[in-house]
């Protein structure tokens, strides 16, 4: 399992920009939004949680189709499915690798982007916390979507259509947590919901993803 994780991370780094690509996309979104809505600090700070969350979501979506597609094309997925690691474990590791290469960099870089959008100190804290709690769910659910579409040639757009509705609860609670945290309101409910959704996703969704992969390899 660890070997698989190391291999995936190594592949992401060698492929060039495994870590950087999502981050660069995130930066572009954050740069473009002020051009769209105007440079007014107050407005930006108010919509910043939403922008950053939607940006994180799209950045995550960008690299989803690569989770299984590469391994499917070169035959590794067949070999992994017949290897002594349970397929559920493979799926989970793949999602973890995806999170480490896209989710984690976003979490770490989020305060910098928050500053660009005039988020204040405490809001930045909530932003990092919400992203850290929420992005793992994005990767796990994304792996599920990727597992469903792994055999398809034109899977990219379909993948987005399948995955985005699944992201709604995480997006809502994530952005709401930042908004409430920034304005000093009660944060317990969105915090618990966000963490709960992520925990439940990690625990349950890999089984569905593994089932989907098995069906696709038939």
């Amino acid at each position, binding site marked *: 399992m660890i070997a698989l994780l190391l291999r995936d991370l190594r592949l992401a780094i060698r492929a060039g920009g495994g870590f950087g690509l999502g981050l660069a996309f995130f930066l572009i979104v954050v740069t473009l939004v002020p051009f769209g809505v105007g440079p007014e600090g107050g407005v930006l700070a108010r919509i910043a949680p939403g922008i950053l969350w939607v940006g994180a979501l799209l950045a995550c979506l960008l690299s989803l189709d690569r989770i299984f597609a590469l391994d499917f094309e070169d035959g590794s997925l067949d070999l992994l499915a017949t290897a002594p690691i349970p397929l559920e474990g493979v799926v989970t590791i793949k999602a973890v690798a995806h999170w480490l290469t896209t989710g984690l960099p976003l979490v770490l870089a989020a305060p910098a982007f928050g500053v660009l959008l005039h988020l204040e100190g405490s809001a930045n804290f909530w932003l990092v916390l919400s992203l850290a709690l929420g992005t793992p769910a994005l990767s796990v659910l994304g792996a599920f979507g990727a597992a*469903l579409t792994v*055999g398809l040639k034109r899977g990219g757009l379909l993948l987005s*259509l*399948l995955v985005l*509705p699944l992201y709604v*609860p995480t997006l*809502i609670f994530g952005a709401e947590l930042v908004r409430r945290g920034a304005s000093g309101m009660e944060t317990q409910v969105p915090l618990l*919901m966000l963490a709960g959704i992520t925990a439940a996703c990690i625990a349950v969704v890999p089984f*569905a993803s593994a089932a989907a992969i098995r*069906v696709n390899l038939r």
Partner: protein
Amino acid sequence: MSIWEYANPKKFMQTSSWALPWVAGLALIALVTGLVWGFFFTPEDYKQGSTVKIIYLHVPSAMMAINIWVMMLVTSLVWLIRRHHVSALAAKAAAPVGMVMTLIALVTGAIWGQPMWGTWWEWDPRLTSFLILFLFYLGYMALWEAIDNPDTAADLTGVLCLVGSVFAVLSRYAVNFWNQGLHQGATLSMDKEENISDVYWYPLLLCIAGFILLFVTLVLIRTRTEIRARRLKALEARERMA
């Protein structure tokens, strides 16, 4: 005789061809009667004026939008557990009907909202939930279309339906939390029978029955089509092999 016998395609084709005219006829009678009754012979609401007549379309379609998804969930489960092909095809057949129902609920809601709330679209929890449900229907149908092998498609859409159901419910809760419905309750609260007077209630019941029967009719027709399409595909494949 067990209910599972209807999962045999032969038996299903026989039974459905016998039942179809009856169900279709009843659907037509119930829908026409209910809608005519509601449209021409019910009074205006003192607050909402004649817009109250939209409930005869809005409420049944909204109910069906949700119930059809539940039906798809049940048939998907039956397919995944007992591997009855007719069940999977019934789920496939129901999805476009559900999508149209969702669309009707959304459009009538928006048209109704325009004079009532002064805006076509309000990010009201219910409307938003239906928009999300609409996306789920779209994704489900797109996945069916994208996969060539019918058994693979049935399996994958079944799994998607399962996971999607959980997230649809979760989204409903999340959306409620996100925007605590400023508008619901202010309008007619339709869930509580006692808030609706009998004058509106009876034609509404008839319309609901009509929508259900129409749905059954459509699912029977479409499932028959899907079964035939699969037989056609199998015959073509065999012809190529021979």
